């Protein structure tokens, strides 16, 4: 017998080839295990996408879904997710966005939609109060993401692509308002299905199991975020680009295509510099008290400013110290609809190809010449842009330079140089969606950005990476912005500063407790049968919204299950342990030639990582682990 008040999510499946839509029931068992967002999305993708499908073929499946927290008004929960086969890696793709589309999709009566097939002509999907229709979008085709959104009612939720998605740029993004589902090529998948936009509107209120307690808890949680030195002070004041001086000071800021980790002009592009020079005001996603969004002037109008990743990769990584130009490039990436991380990585790689006389795309490190024209060419699939739109891995296959092609599984790395943050390096290599800091566990947070855990030692990094990967997965599955994970790090500790003896002691302890951390996962739900506001606030919120008996232990297990289902998808699609790798520049060439330890020692960390995960030596989840997580898949690898 089911839970008396359990409300199952409502999904629709839309066949774009036939132009029909139908409800797609989610069973109670599936919901309880996978909850929503990227976890449920990955499981549905596993079940619905044919094995080894071409990501840009009609047979690829695109799932756009929400989480239980989406739209509830809880702090930092406007998030929604896109799951699909990754255009850049051929493995799993999940991409998260803070625009209003998810809130409106729920208000329109659906927790998720599944797109399959391909429309016969450019189309858009309209979802209004439970009614789904496929409409002609020929008049919208060719518009940028800003223009196309202006064609619809301002208060409707919109998810659109720009020219980059239409032209199948492999790192094309999907955009909602000014927020971006950037990574893995979601825009190209929409473009390949001839879907220019999905719009949603409705008046349905989101389900909250215990509204009174939920509202009380949310107030406490907002207070916690506002009192925290990072989510309450630094991020609102300086935006995420405030990380930049930390990474630069730790030699972990990608510079000149990850050749170096310290940029001599870093002070010109920090969050602090942006606040001093270009910032008009701060802003944020719906229901988010953090308000890390920057507003800057570009082409005479106020637009969203660049975030840390963009400043790093379109700044230091291409030796560009011009903050105004970075804002302009960020704006262009957004309106053309492409991921600024992969774009920055690809441009830097093209510049190094030129430097090494392997190919000439007319781009040079430290030179502004040709960058704007190149981005335009990439988005429109013309000239040299056509090749650059394929991403770093494909370029390296054609022109060489594999040893300095900075990607993992085909996805360009985020803005953390891993040779001086080796836990982040392990995270990049094992991240299911490729070179992603978030899916990779984001150990840069504790190695360079917030804390200063010994960033060179491989000791304890497998254990910490697994803990952080599972935690971040769970937070994302619930529907929270991942910046709320920062508030998990105790504010009073951060306020002491990195040089304080207590901070240095804590940094040592985190490595010291690795043996305990490594064995936690076998007992997780029993180990933490309660919720803790100050340690992991998300689990209590999820309990109050869903009515499910969720504890911190079960919450972390939800994250672990999600990570494993993603891994299983990758294995089924042909990715292996050999793909848990990084370029030779990062694993074999020390960043500092006088310090041989400034490499990512993957060979030392990976075996331990697989062991902690409960995977075999080939990185395949053992049957025992899958049983423990209740994953009923036998893929016979």
């Amino acid at each position, binding site marked *: 017998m089911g839970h008396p008040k359990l409300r199952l999510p409502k999904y629709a499946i839309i066949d774009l080839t036939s132009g029909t839509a139908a409800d797609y029931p989610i069973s109670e068992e599936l919901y309880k295990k996978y909850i929503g967002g990227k976890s449920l999305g990955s499981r549905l993708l596993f079940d619905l996408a044919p094995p080894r499908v071409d990501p840009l073929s009609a047979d690829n499946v695109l799932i756009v879904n929400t989480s239980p927290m989406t739209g509830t008004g809880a702090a930092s929960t406007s998030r929604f997710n896109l799951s699909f086969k990754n255009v850049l890696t051929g493995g799993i793709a999940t991409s998260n966005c803070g625009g209003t589309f998810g809130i409106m999709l729920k208000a329109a009566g659906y927790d998720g939609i599944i797109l399959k097939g391909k429309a016969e002509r450019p189309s858009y999907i309209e979802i209004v109060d439970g009614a789904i229709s496929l409409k002609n979008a020929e008049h919208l085709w060719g518009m940028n993401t800003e223009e196309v959104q202006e064609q619809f009612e301002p208060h409707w939720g919109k998810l659109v692509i720009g020219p980059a998605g239409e032209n199948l740029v492999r790192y094309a993004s999907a955009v909602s308002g000014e927020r971006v589902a950037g990574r893995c090529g979601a825009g190209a998948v929409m473009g390949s299905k001839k879907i220019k936009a999905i719009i949603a509107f409705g008046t349905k209120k989101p389900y909250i199991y215990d509204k009174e307690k939920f509202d009380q808890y949310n107030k406490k949680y907002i207070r916690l975020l506002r009192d925290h030195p990072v989510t309450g002070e630094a991020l609102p004041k300086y935006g995420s680009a*405030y990380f930049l*001086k930390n990474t630069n000071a730790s030699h972990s800021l990608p510079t000149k295509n990850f050749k170096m980790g310290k940029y001599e002009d870093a002070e010109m592009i920090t969050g602090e510099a942006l606040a001093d020079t270009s910032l008009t005001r701060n802003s944020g996603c719906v229901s988010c008290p953090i308000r890390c969004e920057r507003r800057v002037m570009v082409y005479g109008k106020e637009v969203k400013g660049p975030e840390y990743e963009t400043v790093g990769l379109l700044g230091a990584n291409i030796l560009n110290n011009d903050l105004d130009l970075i804002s302009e490039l960020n704006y262009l990436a957004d309106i053309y609809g492409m991921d600024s991380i992969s774009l920055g990585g690809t441009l830097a790689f093209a510049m190094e190809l030129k430097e090494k006389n392997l190919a000439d795309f007319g781009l040079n490190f430290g030179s502004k010449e040709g960058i704007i024209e190149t981005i335009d060419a990439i988005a429109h699939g013309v000239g040299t842009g056509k090749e650059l739109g394929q991403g770093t891995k494909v370029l390296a296959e054609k022109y060489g330079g594999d040893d300095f092609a900075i990607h993992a599984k085909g996805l360009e790395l985020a803005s953390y140089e891993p040779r001086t943050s080796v836990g982040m390096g392990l995270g990049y290599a094992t991240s299911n969606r490729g070179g992603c800091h978030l899916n990779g566990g984001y150990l840069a947070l504790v190695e360079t950005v917030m804390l200063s855990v010994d960033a060179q030692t491989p000791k304890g990094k497998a254990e910490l990476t697994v803990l952080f990967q599972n935690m971040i997965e769970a937070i994302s599955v619930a529907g929270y912005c991942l910046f709320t994970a920062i508030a998990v790090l105790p504010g009073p500790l951060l306020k002491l500063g990195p040089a304080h003896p207590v901070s240095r002691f804590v940094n040592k302890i985190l490595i010291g407790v690795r043996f305990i951390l490594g064995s936690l996962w076998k007992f997780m739900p029993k180990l933490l049968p309660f919720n803790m506001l100050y340690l992991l606030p998300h689990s209590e919120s999820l309990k109050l919204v869903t009515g499910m008996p969720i504890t911190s232990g079960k919450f972390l297990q939800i994250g672990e299950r999600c990570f494993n289902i993603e891994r299983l998808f990758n294995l089924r699609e042909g990715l292996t342990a050999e793909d848990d790798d990084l370029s030779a520049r990062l694993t074999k060439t020390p960043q500092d030639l006088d310090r041989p330890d400034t490499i990512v020692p993957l060979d030392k960390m990976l075996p331990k990582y697989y062991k902690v995960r409960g995977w075999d030596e080939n990185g395949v989840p053992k049957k025992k682990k899958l049983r423990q997580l209740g994953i009923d898949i036998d893929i016979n690898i």
Partner: protein
Amino acid sequence: MANIKYFGKLRTLCGKNEDRIAANNLTELLRAIQKLYGKEAKKAAKAALITVDGDKILSIRKTALSDDSKVSFYPV
């Protein structure tokens, strides 16, 4: 004379963005900051992310400064 840059709270407490202070090491510099701007300023400086010539400092006591050192105090 080390070249100093203040950010965040410290900027307000010191009432300026930049400074030049004579100090042989970070301990001396923090002492000078206390003398010039008060105890609160020293406390904020100690709790800041301190960089010397762009590198993160994890041990105040062991850090020597030269005449052209660039020291920045950022909020963590």
